[in-house]
Every structure is written in structure tokens, then in C-alpha cells.
């Protein structure tokens, strides 16, 4: 699922339940369908072909313009003066929005300020957004990545060798019934380690950080809830634990002296001569750690699945390891882990004959852009040598382009390079399991593989 299809026609055979899909019955917001059938590729295809700027009205959602063409998502992304981040950022059902509003009230009560304050800096437009983003952007440049290359490369090899050991052990003990979870034994490790190290989180806390970020996204899943908790209670408890940890870490860093990590950059940072508030630091730190591990983790898992589903492409990679960088770009396009972000029109805007009125919301569907036949030749073919490959896996370019893109690319290259000898000995034992109620990131909880030595 999640783009991990061999071909469009094959995907069509067993994915969509509705025999004839129309603009009036298609659904791109029902997360239960995402879990059962994977991403709604056929619905996005239809939207691109028949209604690329589509007024989408369904129960449990405020109406919005569904934007599905690569070109239009590019235009909106580079026009922050026309399309603002300050109102709504991620499409959510009305229940989740109400939960979010109660969260804003709690944050205001705890930290001071108003529930109307932006929850984090992604909810800002230029020039305020640029000022805050630049506090840590220097940590993510290609120049910085080159400095970390050798160190993180060694870590990647260690994690892959751990994964290979676990596989071999399962094979020795249980034969064909021995299976290993790619998510927890491989994909999760480097992203957490790399972002925590850059952020200045001590190694003994990495497992805990991973658990908090997992729960942040998976609060609707009973697997992450304590007995008797509902989704909101889990989210509140998790948020409180995380905030307390963050406050302790800030106090410790201040006492021990600032270093060259990202937390120190935040504590040192000033906007117009003012330090960031505790609420801003807490939110910024949460974004860095959550965005920094969840997306890359899912992309690695999806990439393993994509390569195992396409033995010809896997063989090509084994024979040509120099293709790792372009294979990573294709995995990013193919898996399209981030599903959507939302913007609000600041004035009336004409787009493909439709008038988006001031105040109306637009939702950019990145997986759809990444299958746009006007941009990608044979978009449903997984081709690890694809060139050019102007995918929108890191957003549609511009003001809010993924800050961690270079880090994510670098991590994926290191992992897939180290994985080459292992991948040929693997097969998928069970289809990926998806995190429920997640319309923002296509989260994979588990994906079992086995060694076929």
C-alpha cells in the first residue's frame, strides 16, 4: 500500500471497493479507507483529470479546495502572500480540530499568552516565519551534512548490521516462521539517533523520545493508550510528559552551558532582540524531534517494501550501487509519506477557471502531485534511475520547504547503501500496518519481513 504498488493496473485490481468512481462518490479523507486500501490513488487520478481544483464537501470535514496537480501545488507553495499558514495547517476532521482547540487553551493556561497564538512556527507566514526558521536552518545545510557524514555513516552501518543479526537469529531459531519488524529493528533507529544527537538529547533518552513521538501521532491507537484512556487523554498525558522532559533538558543545558546543538541554538536565538518564550522553545523542539524521525522512518520502511515489491529494480540497485541517490529520490516520490498540508486564501485567487475566495481553504495533496502524468513519465512505474525527478515529497518548494530534507536524504542514502547486501535475502512476511486516524502522515506501525537465506 502507500504507493508501494507494482503498477497502476495491479493496484486497481484489489484496492478500490467502488466499481465506478465519480467526483460525487470519491473519498480522499476517510482514514479507515487508507488503512484498508492504501492511498486513494484512483480518486486522485480522477481529480487530476477531471477537477484538479475541486470543492470537496464530505461529512465530518469543513469544505475545502482539493488541489491535486503538481503545478498548482508548486504555485500555492511559492505564494505565501496569497496562501497563508496562519489559519489551518493540516486537514483534520471536525472532532480532531476541536481537540486541537482545547489543546491551544491548555497551552495558553500553562505558558501564558492566548489560545490564538500560533502553536508553532510553521503556523507563521513571512517575514516572521523566516526569522524563526533561520534559527536552526544552518544545522541542516548540505555543508553541515558533509561534516556529519562519516559519523552518521558509521551509525547507519551499525543499525543495518543489527538488523541483519536479528534476521539471521530468527532464521536460525524459527526458519520460515521467524519474522522481524522492519519499523522497530531498522527504520526507526537512525532517524531518532541523528535528530536527537543534532538536537542535543543524551543517548540514554533516545528510546523515550521515540516513544513520545510515536504516541504523539498514534494517540488514537489503543496500542499507545494506557488502560482506560481515550485518544485525547493519551495525547494530553504524552504531551505533559514530553513538556516536563523538555523543561528539564532546557534547565540542564542552561546550567551546563550552551553548546553547538540545536537546543542551544534555540536558547541562544533572538527575534528582534527578544529570546524565544518557553512555549516557543517547547513547540519548536517538538516539531524538530517529531518531524525529524517519523517521516524518515516511514520512508525507509516504504522504501524497503518498494524494493522488495520490484525485484528488477532491486537487482538493478545491487548491480549499480551508485544509483542509491536516485533510488532514494524515487522512494521519496513513490512512498509520498506526507499526505497533505493546508493553506488559507488571503484574497480571491483564480486557478484553472475556479475562483478560490478569500478565507477559503486549500489542501495540497502531495502524493497526487507525485503521480502527475504531466510531470512524471509513466508515473506508476517505480524506476530507481528516474531523471529528472522533481517530486514534492518535501512539500511544493518555497517558504515552507521541509527544513530537514537534506538530513532525510542523507539518512536514507546511508541506510539503503548499507542495506544493499541484506535486501536480496529478504521477503515481505506481512503487509504494512498503518497508524489509524492519520490523514497527515502515512504512518507505518509495523512491517514484518523474513530472511530467505
Amino acid at each position, binding site marked *: 500500500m502507500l504507493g508501494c504498488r507494482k503498477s497502476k493496473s495491479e493496484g486497481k485490481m484489489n484496492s478500490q471497493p467502488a466499481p465506478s468512481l465519480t467526483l460525487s462518490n470519491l473519498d480522499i479523507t476517510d482514514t479507515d479507507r487508507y488503512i484498508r486500501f492504501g492511498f486513494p490513488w484512483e480518486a486522485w487520478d480522477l481529480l487530476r483529470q477531471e477537477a484538479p481544483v475541486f470543492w470537496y464537501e464530505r461529512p465530518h470535514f469543513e469544505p475545502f479546495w482539493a488541489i491535486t496537480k503538481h503545478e498548482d501545488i508548486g504555485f500555492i*507553495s*511559492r505564494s505565501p502572500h496569497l496562501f497563508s499558514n496562519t489559519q489551518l495547517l493540516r486537514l483534520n476532521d471536525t472532532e480532531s480540530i476541536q481537540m486541537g482547540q482545547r489543546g491551544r487553551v491548555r497551552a495558553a493556561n500553562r505558558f501564558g499568552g492566548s489560545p490564538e497564538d500560533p502553536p508553532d512556527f510553521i503556523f507563521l507566514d*513571512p*517575514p516572521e516565519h*523566516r526569522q524563526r526558521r*533561520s534559527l536552526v*536552518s*544552518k544545522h*541542516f*545545510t*548540505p*555543508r553541515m551534512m558533509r561534516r556529519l557524514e562519516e559519523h552518521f555513516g558509521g551509525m547507519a552501518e551499525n543499525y543495518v548490521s543489527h538488523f541483519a543479526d536479528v534476521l539471521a537469529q530468527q532464521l536460525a531459531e524459527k526458519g520460515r516462521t521467524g519474522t522481524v519488524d522492519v519499523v522497530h529493528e531498522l527504520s526507526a533507529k537512525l532517524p531518532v539517533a541523528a535528530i536527537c544527537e543534532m538536537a542535543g538529547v543524551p543517548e540514554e533518552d533516545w528510546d523515550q523520545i521515540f516513544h513520545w513521538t510515536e504516541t504523539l501521532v498514534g494517540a488514537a491507537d489503543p496500542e499507545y493508550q494506557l488502560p482506560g484512556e481515550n485518544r485525547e487523554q493519551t495525547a494530553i498525558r504524552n504531551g505533559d510528559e514530553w513538556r516536563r522532559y523538555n523543561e528539564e533538558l532546557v534547565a540542564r543545558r542552561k546550567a551546563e552551558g550552551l553548546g553547538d546543538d540545536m537546543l542551544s541554538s534555540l536558547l541562544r536565538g533572538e527575534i528582534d532582540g527578544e529570546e524565544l518564550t518557553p512555549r516557543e522553545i517547547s513547540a519548536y523542539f517538538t516539531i524538530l524531534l517529531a518531524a525529524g524521525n517519523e517521516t524518515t522512518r516511514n520512508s525507509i520502511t516504504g522504501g524497503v517494501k518498494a524494493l522488495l515489491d520490484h525485484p528488477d529494480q532491486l537487482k538493478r540497485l545491487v548491480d549499480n550501487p551508485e544509483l542509491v541517490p536516485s533510488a532514494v529520490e524515487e522512494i521519496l516520490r513513490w512512498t509520498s509519506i506526507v499526505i497533505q498540508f493546508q493553506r488559507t486564501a488571503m484574497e480571491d485567487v483564480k486557478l484553472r477557471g475556479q475562483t478560490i475566495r478569500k478565507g477559503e481553504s486549500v489542501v495540497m495533496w502531495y502524493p497526487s502531485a507525485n503521480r502527475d502524468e504531466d510531470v512524471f513519465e509513466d508515473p506508476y512505474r517505480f524506476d530507481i534511475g528516474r531523471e529528472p525527478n*522533481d517530486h514534492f515529497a*518535501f512539500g511544493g*518548494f*518555497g*517558504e515552507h*520547504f521541509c527544513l530537514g*530534507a*537534506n538530513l532525510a536524504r542523507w539518512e536514507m542514502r546511508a541506510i539503503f547503501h548499507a542495506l544493499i547486501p541484506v535486501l536480496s535475502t529478504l521477503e515481505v512476511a506481512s503487509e504494512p500496518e498503518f497508524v489509524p486516524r492519520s490523514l497527515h502522515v502515512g504512518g507505518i506501525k509495523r512491517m514484518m519481513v523474513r530472511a530467505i537465506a
Partner: protein
Amino acid sequence: MRVVVDHSLCEGHAKCMENAPGVFEVRDDDLSYVLVTDIPEEQREAVTRAVQICPRRAIQLEE
């Protein structure tokens, strides 16, 4: 044809320099600098591509 880089957006992703190395140079301050005042004919395609693939859309062409 002239080309300018908006330094309030540029973050040194260096896609421009990879694509048109004679025209752009990313320096130690993580900002891209334009090396030539007038883009030579044979570099135009590479520069146009650099504009498209700049992750921050920080490069503008001026005819």
C-alpha cells in the same frame, strides 16, 4: 538575462551550484552567490533549471 538570489530565502541547499556551477557558488555562509552579471547563452538552460529546482524558490530571472 540576469539572475538574482534572494538571501532572505536561500539556505544553501546548493541545487543551483550543482546544476550551473559556473553561475552559482554557495559559500561558507550557506548563501548562494551569482558569479556572472550576464548569463551566457550556453548556460541559460542550466540556469532556468536551477530556478525550477531551487527548494526555496529563492532564484529570480530578470530578462
